[in-house]
């Protein structure tokens, strides 16, 4: 969230209201040209698909899970992590041939698609948090989750068994808004892209 605000401000969007402590859900830029709403990550694709929000910032993991009809226009390059299959190291060789694997995850769609693609039949167990508990308690054989540093996995004695894909924050745009409000939206996308590229280059140099 801080990083999203940071990029928006660098792109010239005044986010002062957002940074003030409050319980408000709606925020405006001082010129009232842009209205911002704070929603749960899983709800970002929904708001944007319905066109309630023209644009949204959300993790690639959520986009993969929700499978909404959206334009995914920029990689904002923050919030980087990996979607992985993880489990106990001793299962590294065994679980692959296991005919019925139980998978605990916050991402049932991603997990289902991933294993379907691999031709493996699995039982998906949807959890809402602390997915690592799955293998620890015996609820599941493995988990599908995002991993940033891998520390949580390590502390629980789990290792990455397979990498599914890389994840980072993305800028998504409603399909109609991009066309009907093209001038305003395109300008903002270009500004944000410039900021992201500058930062990326800054890191390299």
């Amino acid at each position, binding site marked *: 969230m801080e990083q999203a605000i940071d990029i928006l401000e660098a792109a010239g969007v005044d986010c002062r209201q957002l940074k003030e402590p409050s319980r408000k859900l709606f925020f405006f830029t001082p010129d009232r040209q842009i209205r911002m709403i704070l929603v749960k990550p899983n709800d970002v694709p929904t708001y944007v698909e319905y066109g309630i929000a023209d644009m949204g910032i959300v993790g690639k993991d959520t986009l993969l899970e929700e499978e909404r009809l959206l334009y995914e226009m920029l990689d904002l390059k923050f919030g980087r992590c990996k979607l992985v299959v993880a489990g106990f190291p001793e299962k590294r060789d065994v679980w692959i041939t296991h005919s019925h694997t139980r998978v605990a995850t916050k991402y049932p769609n991603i997990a289902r698609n991933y294993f379907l693609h691999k031709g493996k039949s699995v039982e998906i167990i949807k959890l809402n948090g602390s997915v690592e508990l799955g293998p620890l308690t015996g609820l599941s054989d493995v988990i599908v989750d995002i991993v940033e540093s891998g520390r949580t996995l390590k502390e629980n004695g789990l290792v990455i068994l397979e990498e599914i894909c890389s994840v980072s924050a993305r800028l998504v745009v409603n399909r*109609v808004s991009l*066309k*009907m*409000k093209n001038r305003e939206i395109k300008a903002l996308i270009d500004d944000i892209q410039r900021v992201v590229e500058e930062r990326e280059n800054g890191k390299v140099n």
Partner: protein
Amino acid sequence: MLGKLKLRLPEGVQDYLPDECYNKREIEDTIRRFFYLSGYNEIETPIIEFFDVFAGVKPSIEQEQMFKLIDPEGRILVLRPDITMPIARVVGTKMANDPLPLRLFYLGNVYRYGNFQAGKQREVAQAGMELLGVSDPEADAEVVAMAIQLFLELGLKEFQIDIGQVEFFKGLIEEAGLVQEEVEEIRSLIDHKNMLALEMFLKKLPISEQIKDTLYRLPQLYGDSQILEDAMKISRNPKCRAALENIYQVYGILKDYGFDRFVTFDLGMVHSFNFYTGIIFRGITRELGYPICGGGRYDRLVSEFGRDLPATGFAVGIKRLLIALERQGKLKQVPGVDVLVVAQDGQRREAYHLMQRLKRQNMRVEMFLPVDSSITPLDYARQRCIPKVVEFKVNAEVIEYEIGIE
């Protein structure tokens, strides 16, 4: 637990209560009249069809999306997920000898599971038209112009028709010689305007830099007619150039009709490209985050039903129109009854004659049938905003009252 669902509706379907139903019917009447006056004939096909009708060579609707039934012989039936394919079936069979061009239209429900549209409706009221037998750009322009004219007839404001051409994309991938999985990946990335992933994916492919560059720019090729010029500059492939020429021709005709101000372009519009074979388009409006209509050219479909015919058409979602028009303040309440008729003992015959006469004059009439005996006809009329009451008295006297309604 029998009967526990008695008071409920299955997911994805709705009741249309009087006010919404009235507006739906008004819209459908406008559409029917407009298509009819434009020389199109209405056609009706059954809601139930064989699954095979929709399971084409390269099916454009996934089988998971279809409602299925089994007939007594064990064959699979579906609730039609689309009406274009049944029309192709009719044109290829029962109308196989009808002279061309064929202009047909329909109004009806289609059924799909899944995320068919943002509202997740499973029963979707559609209206659409098909122009069969003409491959010239005039036919494509006629269909796009019909969509524009229809929205104008309906009083829709601030809408746009976004035009693409799938052959442009097909020309590129043919030249590149990619396998099906690669094509699908690229198509999906372009359709999502996902530039970064597209760049990464293209980088790995052993295809010419020139094709890579054009594919990479495809998601950005949207906007006014300037993008057609941009696309022309970077296209050497004859199929791509022909696709652009085709858009130019259609655009030229739309200009003649004075409709160019409603038109934008997007060469990165590459959905359903197994089905479409040329110009494709979507209608959008500021009020709605998803398209209200869609269509395009599908020259290969009808041949699957035994008659090789070029064809183009579009369908519009009635519920989406209702929502867009409501947000633009264009919906109405059901008009009230014009005259309340009260017949006292022995006067029924005279009263009923009057009602018949008024109906012939296009007035809405209602017989006074009080549920609560204490209510007077005048109070009832006031409550229901009925401006006129005619009372047939026992002594054959007829009294008319005008009700003041604020």
